[in-house]
């Protein structure tokens, strides 16, 4: 009797205090979220629920790293099962004779074992495997939590093991064995052997187990929101409110003032929830090209630094003002970190709880930019965008000059109607090395009998990079110029050779009212081949293909280029990182113009090495003009010209259609 009263009292005290602590914390976080900028994330409920099932219950992204996926699944499922134990244990204390029945009880014990295996695996992972992605994570916290979970599981077994000796007198249960807790029952054999079965001994043992279990659970509840394990609560809602709009759309609607983030209020509420959902797993860090290149950026640390800063400000009482606190952009997260990002999106793609790093990084960049702090090279590009409409600082008039030397005229879509409108893009138009390719694309279209045209000097840079450097106003100006030219043009469909332009036209111009369907040239040429308008002689060579981030990851166009490459008779060998998991060349987000200080190994060079490891692959196929520059330079710098050739999909088509002589692209069949 006394025992139950004591346990009841203890339970009540623990419950109330932990709920109070938990509530205080959650209220504080919710307070920040309420003050943050609005964003719509509760539409399309069906899809959202489906994605919760896919990514919470089925652990889709988690299983990309098999070992971690399994161990997490073990522990995660243990939490679900733990609920049964909590109900049962508190129930039996408060309601005489309460039990969850033999089936559920057995499940609890089976999962005790599963969780312990999971914990053993987790410890092995952290102590022996030690993946680099954990660097910078709070290891102590991780072990503390693993310890607490072990305590809970042990507590369950311990109180169950003393239960039989108290069942009748204290809990008014006639048949203790019916509870089917086989682990506890097994351990109770030991107590019998030791003679620890007296009401006093068993009462003490039970209380110990109860505290280890329920006590730690409540402790956990109070501690969680202060630790990374808050994700136990926040992951489900965070995945529910994930971004379901087009992935490549960085800014969902025209901002009222600026996109700059100077205080936590300038984030969207989902950004705040993100901070408290990060599990410190480091999967984002492991795929980050900037991190791999030895630069100071880790997407994980960006999230953690912001979270810690917000925590400090909440603790100090004035998170909104915090005048003495370091600036978010440049202080909490350093300029070097922010400018190192290529906006490749690999981090977001990897994050099991759908944290969105890129908008945060760009928002912070924008604040730096407003204060005039920007890399000199990027600044030059921005000024050139503003003045000339291209990053090369070349006169707008020279944009169509690449077309000189073609033996057929190209229509000006602003002056006469065309079937296909080609948005050429800066690199394709101005980079002397890429111009050959651009001409080749024109020849291919001509060969296929496509009625096509371009916007001539009416085209300017799409603004995709300007936006990702943080210059929304410039993006808007550039977009307005393009939209003005597009307005004048008459066309049935629009395509582009440049993935960055594709992304802007397709995703970022929608908020400005541009809704045409935009295609990448690999999609467009795929159709021409399918319609038999281009006849291809098989090339018979082995090649690998690099997915540009703005094509594969941000726009999910991974199959069209592959299908087209295969149609040219190429035996396509995949690099380990491909499709939506491709590895960035390092050029995106304005990086192509920025200084490389602190770079240990350029991402493009790492990528070339990845391709070199493939057996007998002598061709590295790309589908983005910037990639042509980036990877050719890597191959040159690494002295690999004889071993690996960088070719564009258009060149494969050129040779397969007989437009190009084999020598011109050195496609010696191997």
């Amino acid at each position: 009797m006394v025992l139950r009263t004591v346990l009841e009292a203890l339970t009540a005290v623990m419950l109330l205090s932990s709920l109070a602590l938990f509530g205080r914390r959650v209220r504080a976080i919710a307070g920040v979220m309420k003050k943050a900028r609005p964003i719509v994330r509760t539409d399309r409920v069906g899809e959202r629920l489906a994605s919760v099932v896919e990514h919470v219950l089925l652990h889709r992204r988690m299983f990309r790293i098999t070992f971690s996926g399994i161990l997490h699944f073990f522990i995660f499922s243990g939490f679900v099962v733990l609920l049964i134990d909590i109900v049962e244990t508190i129930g039996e204390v408060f309601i005489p004779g309460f039990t969850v029945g033999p089936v559920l009880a057995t499940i609890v014990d089976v999962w005790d074992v599963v969780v312990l295996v999971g914990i053993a695996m987790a410890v092995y992972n952290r102590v022996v495997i030690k993946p680099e992605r954990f660097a910078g994570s709070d290891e102590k916290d991780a072990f503390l939590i693993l310890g607490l979970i072990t305590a809970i599981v042990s507590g369950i077994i311990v109180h169950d093991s003393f239960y039989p000796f108290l069942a009748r007198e204290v809990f008014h249960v006639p048949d203790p064995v019916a509870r089917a807790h086989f682990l506890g029952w097994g351990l109770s054999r030991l107590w019998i052997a030791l003679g620890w079965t007296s009401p006093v001994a068993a009462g003490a043992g039970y209380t110990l187990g109860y505290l280890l279990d329920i006590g730690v659970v409540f402790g956990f509840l109070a501690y969680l929101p202060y630790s990374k394990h808050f994700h136990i609560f926040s992951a489900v809602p965070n995945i529910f409110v994930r971004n379901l709009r087009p992935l490549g759309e960085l800014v969902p609607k025209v901002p009222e003032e600026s996109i700059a983030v100077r205080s936590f209020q300038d984030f969207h509420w989902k950004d705040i929830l993100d901070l408290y959902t990060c599990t410190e797993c480091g999967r984002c860090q492991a795929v980050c090209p900037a991190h791999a290149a030895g630069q100071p950026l880790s997407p994980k640390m960006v999230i953690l630094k912001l979270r810690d800063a917000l925590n400090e400000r909440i603790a100090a009482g004035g998170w909104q003002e915090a005048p003495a606190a370091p600036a978010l952009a440049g202080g909490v997260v350093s300029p070097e970190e922010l400018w190192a990002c290529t906006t490749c999106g690999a981090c977001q793609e990897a994050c099991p709880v759908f944290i969105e790093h890129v908008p945060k990084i760009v928002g912070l960049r924008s604040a730096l930019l407003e204060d005039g702090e920007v890399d000199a090279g990027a600044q030059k590009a921005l000024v050139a965008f503003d003045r000339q409409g291209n990053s090369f600082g070349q006169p707008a008039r020279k944009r169509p000059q690449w077309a000189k030397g073609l033996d057929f005229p190209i229509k000006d879509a602003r002056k006469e109607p065309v079937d296909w409108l080609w948005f050429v893009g800066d690199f394709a138009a101005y980079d002397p090395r890429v111009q050959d390719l651009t001409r080749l694309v024109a020849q291919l279209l001509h060969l296929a009998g496509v009625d096509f045209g371009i916007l001539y000097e009416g085209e300017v840079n799409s603004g995709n990079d300007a936006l990702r450097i943080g210059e929304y106003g410039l993006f808007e100006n550039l977009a307005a110029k393009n939209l003005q030219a597009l307005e004048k043009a008459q066309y049935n469909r629009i395509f582009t050779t440049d993935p960055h332009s594709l992304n802007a036209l397709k995703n970022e111009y929608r908020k400005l009212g541009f809704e045409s369907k935009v295609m990448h040239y690999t999609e467009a040429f795929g159709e021409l081949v399918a319609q038999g308008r281009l006849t291809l002689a098989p090339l018979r060579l082995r090649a690998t293909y690099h997915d540009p981030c703005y094509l594969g990851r941000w726009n999910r166009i991974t199959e069209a280029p592959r299908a087209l490459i295969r149609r040219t008779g190429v035996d396509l060998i995949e690099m380990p990182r491909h499709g939506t998991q491709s590895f960035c060349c390092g050029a995106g987000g304005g990086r192509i113009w920025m200084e490389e200080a602190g770079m240990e190994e350029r991402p493009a060079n790492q990528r070339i090495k990845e391709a070199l490891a493939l057996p007998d692959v002598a061709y590295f196929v790309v589908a983005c003009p910037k990639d042509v520059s980036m990877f050719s330079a890597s191959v040159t710098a690494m002295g690999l010209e004889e071993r690996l050739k960088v070719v564009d999909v258009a060149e494969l088509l050129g040779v397969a259609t007989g437009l190009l002589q084999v020598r011109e692209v050195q496609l010696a069949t191997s």
Partner: protein
Amino acid sequence: MKIAVLMKDVPDLVEDLELTDEGQLAVDELSFIPSEWDDQALEEALLVKDEMGQAEVTAVAVDTGDVDSMLYTALAKGADRAVKIVGEFGRDLPNRARSAVLAEYLKTAGYDLILTGVQAIDDVDGQVAGLVAGHLDVPHASVVREVAVAGGHVRCLQEYSAGRMAELRLATPALLGIQAARKPPRYVTIAKVRQVTKSASLEEVEGELPEVPTAAVRRLFKPQAAGRAVMWEGDPEAVAEQIVALLDDRKLIRS
């Protein structure tokens, strides 16, 4: 401390310069940008202000057309005031006349320090700093960097060839022709310029077109285009001879 920065815009050299049949520049075809050295001068002034705390920076330009956006940009970057000198001035206002107009305004405006670019590309006498200083008869120095103000004096470094420099101290009011700011001119976002254009205003001051001594420009023409390199034939020995002769001719060999 009141600091003035004299600014002007010049044709953007990125564009090809087209000449009319009369050998004049086809001004209508050109796009104009702030003179790069004036941009440097503005940056240096803003840095001086940052350092001193209580300085006031005023951007000053003669209204030869579309100078508003240049002045608003200066305000957006951190200038406190912007003065536009209005009058009968066209795009073709020679620097000599511009300098006289500026000097007339500056005489009574009470600035302690006047900065401007060391040169402007658009005239045979584009050295506005010296021209204005001659009118005002104030201490001045051109081709300078690293301006600092202390105790009513201005310090700066004047650059000579081959990396030699001198540190000068000038009594105020002083006028400096800036070669380069300590830091590259800061970037200012389009949004900020837009916002300043809405919220701030330019001060307008009347100016008059003065009589100035001129050297008449007969015509403008383009230098012979370089084209592809002149190739020297022969073995390394012969090529070395050619290179030495060329460097010698261009006075690039140290004797």
